[in-house]
């Protein structure tokens, strides 16, 4: 499996919508464990008041990411393959939830 970053800009009107989407994402992800693994996401505060995400996934192919997104009804703006990781310090503790 390769690592990918998935950009989902302005994906949801509210944080609650996003939470609902995250639940669907987990359910669908568990149904295709050989093809996608959700690693982590950063939630974006979009200028128009909506919410977006940058997600890190491991996946067998870009098509697997799209199949997962389609099944969980998540938007996909762009999929970029990760060539390497530079870890400086651990992610900060999430502000909420």
């Amino acid at each position, binding site marked *: 499996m390769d690592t990918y970053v998935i950009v989902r800009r302005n994906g949801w009107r509210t944080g609650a919508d996003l939470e609902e989407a995250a639940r669907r994402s987990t359910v669908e992800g568990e149904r295709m464990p050989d093809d996608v693994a959700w690693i982590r996401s950063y939630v974006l505060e979009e200028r128009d008041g909506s919410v977006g995400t940058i997600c890190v996934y491991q996946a067998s192919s870009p098509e697997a990411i*799209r199949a997962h997104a389609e099944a969980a009804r998540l938007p996909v703006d762009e999929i970029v393959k990760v060539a390497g990781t530079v870890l400086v310090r651990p992610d900060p503790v999430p502000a909420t939830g």
Partner: protein
Amino acid sequence: MGRNGQRGFVAQSHMVGTAPPLLEREEALAALTEALASALGGEGRVALVYGEAGIGKTTVVRAFARASRGTARVLWGACDPLFTPRPFGPLYDLAREAGSTVLLEVEREDDRTAQLASLLDLLGETPTVGVVEDAHWADEASLDALRYLARRIERVPCLLVVTYRDDEVGAEHPLRLLLGAIPSGVARRIELGPLSDRAVRELASAAGRDATGLYERTRGNPFYVTEVLAASGSGLPATVRDAVLARALGLGNEARAVLDLASVVPGQVERWLLDEVLGSASAGANVCVERGMLVPGPGGLAFRHELARQAILEALGPERRAANHRAVLHTLEARPDRDSLLPRLAHHAEAAGDAGAVVRYAPLAAARAAAVGSHREAAALYELALRYADEAGDDVRVALVEAYAHVAHLTGRLDEAIAARREAIELSRRLGDPLREGENLARLTMPFIGAGRNAEAEEAGRQAIAVLEELPPGRELAVAYAFQAYLRMLSRDNADGVAWGERARSLAEEVGDVDTLAMALNMIGTSHVMAGEIEPGCEYLERSLALALEHGLTPRVASAYGMLASGLGEMYEFDRAERWIREYLRFGGERDLDVSYITSWLAAVHVYRGRWDEGAELAQQLLAGDAGPLARITALVALGRVRARRGDPGAEEALDEALELSRPGGHLQRLGHVLAARAEAAWLAGDRERALAEARAAYPLALEKRHLWFAGELAYWQWRCGRLESAPGWIAEPYRLQLAGDALGAARAWATRGCPYERARALAESENTEARLEAVGALDELGAAPLARQLRGHLRALRVRVPRGPRPSTRDNAAGLTRRELEVLALVAEGLRNAEIADWLVVSRRTVDHHVSAILRKLGAHTRGEAAAEAARLGLLENR
């Protein structure tokens, strides 16, 4: 199931009449019983019982068969370790045991599908356990037949039990293909491991023997243990062989003679054969049976185990062994039914070192094997005959190398096929037979093309015609013309392809050579199609198809379907291409033909018609399998285009591999596709220099061959890079209109061909704002991010307000089903089963299972019926 979990063993009947104690095979038997229960419930299964030689596979299956007699009919078939096994051997056995003659008339490979369908019916007519023993020795036709049955067993109340020695089945073993082809829901794998120390002690004590060192020596191999326990004497034999020999030591001369003779006969030795060779041997045979060394079966006597036969055979010594083989050979030769004994005759002839008999029987056995599709065995038999044919005259040898070249080509041994054709050419020259020389030269083109050695293929084709045109025209010249047409078609020299094809056609008609006529019609038709003359091309191809169907020429039928499918695909005639692809998949599916190349075309057609998910999924399915290079190239182009058009990563990798694979042939039909896709990907990635270089790399060749579509697309990319010097007026219409600046006309032309992406791309090139806004919508709908982004940029620069791209929520239906799930739901509602849906959508069973369970979950349904009812209630399937 692991080795540890299931130890067990039935102590063999070395004392006739004693019921053997059943030890430690409970789990294996339970697994078989469970599989049989599924089969009895109408869902057939394949149980694979495997382990090393002597581990007790047969014993377990016999015990299971005994226990099942009340509930199911049990049929037995066996594969034997002959030099080359009997073609279809185990399947004949099964049919014979069922009292059926369905397989008896298999004389030709084309009859096979109907016969296999009858065999499946036979297995399903009543609850049945069909056993095929020792599949590691099976011939190619039997393996093909087992694969055919395994793929369809789910529909019938039959449990197919296949046993094999897993330690003799390496990665390259032909049985692997069968094992890989069994649908995962159907297969039950039952591995048999060695006995435990405790079980070995128990057996020793039951036999009243000392168990010291027995487990360590035998490593728990049940056959070894039994032999040691059955042998007289007190020492512990060092090997299985020693144990068998120790057991045979006490036999009298007569019995030993029977055992020695039986050891040269793999499988069962008939009583009449023993009597014929040894005089009245019944007495000795009975002693062997009483001692448990030989076991009576339906056709005669057999060793209790192949390991025992090998031990006795090795102990014979080379001279006695050859003498016994000779005696058996002479007896079999004198039989009135010797034509049905050809594999055995070849086996004993070889083992007796009788060159004359090898050259007499091996080619006959080979021809019989090849006729029913056991090409691998046929090749081995021809190789054998050739090894012994040094003394034979050139006239005998030339026929052998020709036959060998044919089967070597069919089994993918291209170098051997080339070498054999060259020898045949040389021998024909020596014999002063230019007709034969010419035909061999013509047929030499095929393996050369297969090996990517185009220049040598051209040379052979030229020589064939040069040699044959010196002589009065006949069948051989028709063949040479047809192969010349084939070469010209491959090079996309279409006018020449038609001209040579016409010559082949008229001559083949004159001499009444149907096979060559079907080939000629195919080449003429394909060349027309490639020239853009679609209607006459299809007409010729359909004539070729009808002729091949009428005469049962399966390879020609497949070729006609294949050319209609891929040729029309290459010409952007996607409606018709798709129809022929589906016809071919049906025809090939029924016959288990390799359909990967045509399936790769379906992936490509999906992509060009805007069904990107389906195209990419199918392409990946093919790429994950063992498809050949041509199928891989087409699948990689389809996948590369989708990724490039979506802006997804991985387009470059796919198209790099496609280019690598198309270099050896160097033909336009591959390079045109691959380089056009590479130009598109580079352009979408913003690399104009590379886009230009890719397009220019194949453009001159496309112009030279007047390929409407490749020339069109390659010109188009140069034009998009602003660097097109010139393009001819004959390129395909949509591209011609685009290059002339008629974007809206081009968009209409693309719409006619059913290409939504190309249509949107043309609209985007228009000056008309309405059209360009429509293009944005269409590109968003397709998920064509890079082009949509670019177009939005242009429009914003013109201060046009552009709507945002769609979010998935706008595409929602009440239940949140995806487009693909709706498609599957419609088929579920029609009552199709998952396997049928997989066939229809040309995706894997696993994918369909996945979709169906997602549908049930999203609709909150427990059954397919409930899902269909819920779909109707929500109106999900309306407006589809």
